């Protein structure tokens, strides 16, 4: 069963390849400002998340996600109530 607690570590793992060496991730890490993801990397990240959690990320939640925590929130909602 997936919850916020065990979701974050998995998310950190997924974000690993998108993260600079030496940078540690926390829930408040900003995806664009801190990790410097460009628009194509964002798309790559979303496809990895979709595959990993077996969910479909709707278009309209993307503009609402700024931090790792936002991402985790949205994923946990999607996993509980698959669209």
């Amino acid at each position, binding site marked *: 069963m997936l919850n916020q607690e065990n979701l974050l570590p998995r998310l950190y793992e997924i974000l690993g390849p998108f993260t600079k060496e030496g940078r540690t991730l926390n829930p408040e890490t900003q995806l*664009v400002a801190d990790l*410097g993801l460009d628009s194509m990397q964002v798309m*790559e990240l979303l496809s990895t998340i979709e595959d990993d959690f077996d969910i*479909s990320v709707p278009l309209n939640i993307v*503009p609402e996600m700024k931090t790792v925590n936002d991402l985790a929130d949205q994923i946990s909602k999607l996993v509980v109530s698959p669209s």
Partner: protein
Amino acid sequence: MSGGATPTQSGIPLRSGDFLTLTHALEYAAQGNTGCNFYTSRGKLSASISYSDLHRQSSALAKRLLSLDLQRGARMAIVADTSPDFLRFFFACQLAGFVPVPLPISIHLGGHDAYVKQLRRLLQTCGASAAMAPEEIVPFLEEASSGLDLTIQGGADVFASLPEVSHDLCPLGQSELAYIQFTSGSTRWPRGVEITQEAVLSNLSGIIQHGLQVQAGDRCVSWLPFYHDMGLVGFVLGPVASQLSVDYLSTRDFAMRPRQWLNLMTQSKATISFSPSFGFELCLRRLAERDRDQFDLSHWRIAGVGAETVRSEPLLQFAKALEPSGFNEKAFLACYGMAECSLAISFAPLNQGLMVDHVDGDYLSEHQEAISLDAEDWNVSPNIRESHYVNCGDPLPGCDVEIRNESGDILPERHAGVIFVKGPGIMTGYFGDPVTTQEVLSPDGWLNTGDIGYCIGRSLVIIGREKDIIIINGRNIWPQDLEYLAECLPGVRPGDTSAFSVSNSSGEESAVVVIQCRETDQRKREQLIEELKPIVYKELGIECFVELIPPRTLPRTSSGKLSRSRAREDFLKRGNWKESSELVMDASSSVSSASL
């Protein structure tokens, strides 16, 4: 092909765009079996609509729209998701006598406010009376339109509950508008290009008969956005006007899983698909070595490339990598066009692949003349700097092209100047903007494309955008060249750079290269700058100022193209150049000249 997709054969004689209006084109296509198919990001068919169904459903929707009592020619904004609803609403407008205006979906991380602001500006610019959005975008639309005078707005369900009127439909006629298309070229306010039925159909018949030479058995695949001229005119209206079936992947799904484009090509045995250069690059970048022979691209007879300057190297890499899957590099078809001309101006000849013109780069900069080089010349002579550009072929029949210098004189073959175009596909103007219209469109119908190029015989070679040219000590420097040099550095990718010029108070120009840089180590950042400067000096003979900025900060237009003039404005606002003694500038005059 999985069950349910519309067949490739229409079962009716092929008519190549010879229709008076889009409604006539749809009515004819509706007599056959072909239509549009939509696929999920995992390659499953999610919806399919034949042209016959599309015609019936659009007619019913048109009767509902008429119950709103809008003026004939009223604008209906349609947030252009890749979906059957977009098609229904677009053609319902045609049938009811309203002008459809496709609006972009630009969704970025944390980009809520920016998107709402953009939508609002577009709704205001086209003076929309009605607006429709896919369900998940409705909240954005509602926020964007608050306080605006819209008769109706919402998702498809809101319109489905309108009553149908009983009287007959009176579709948009030949001389009425077909649609308003927002350009991506805008660096200021958005410009809505007005295209008449006559214009778009003359362009479509040129594309279908001459550019693509469509034949029975052709089938299209597209992931291009429906709010983009190539996506809308090329791959929504084009297939209707030539009765072809088309398989759609949404732009977002392509960006997430570019291989799906190739999977869909394989699965549907499609023969025609277009992309800007970057689409081919992205696809190749996300393709594992072991997957390169996993597709069947042998049916792909036209791999069109356009919408941004065509660069040959990445395309040839794509072709080479996918040769084991049957991709034929002769399928590449370079073309040139813009929303102001409906879509297309010129096409290279079919089945030739890319025609690359190698020229003396220094001579071109200094004398604006493209002297052709033999391969031997530039391979053996270290004194010649070779530049190469892709030939975009002959203008469509009925379309005249002139290359002019600054004084308006018509230039001979191989002399570079501004490209002017005249022909039946050209817009009537920018909606509600006579001043800007006058700037680019002369009373006798010549359109200033703003692009720089030269002719070889009748064929057209595009060098770049006029306003982007950097002139240093009387030499023309193409920003693409500077950007290319920067992109050759380790860690810098295509699209990470923008080059432009800034001038001091006495009008002297300096070249600037801005690079999106992921590197955080200060020493390595400095190294990057120190590495680039001598390369630029060596290659182009100019000094340049290099600035590193965070990833994802270079401004882009709605279709994802980098905007050099906005990059320049941002650069001046940041003011980092002040620290450089090489550049002493009057910021206010520079900003105003940038927004000219």
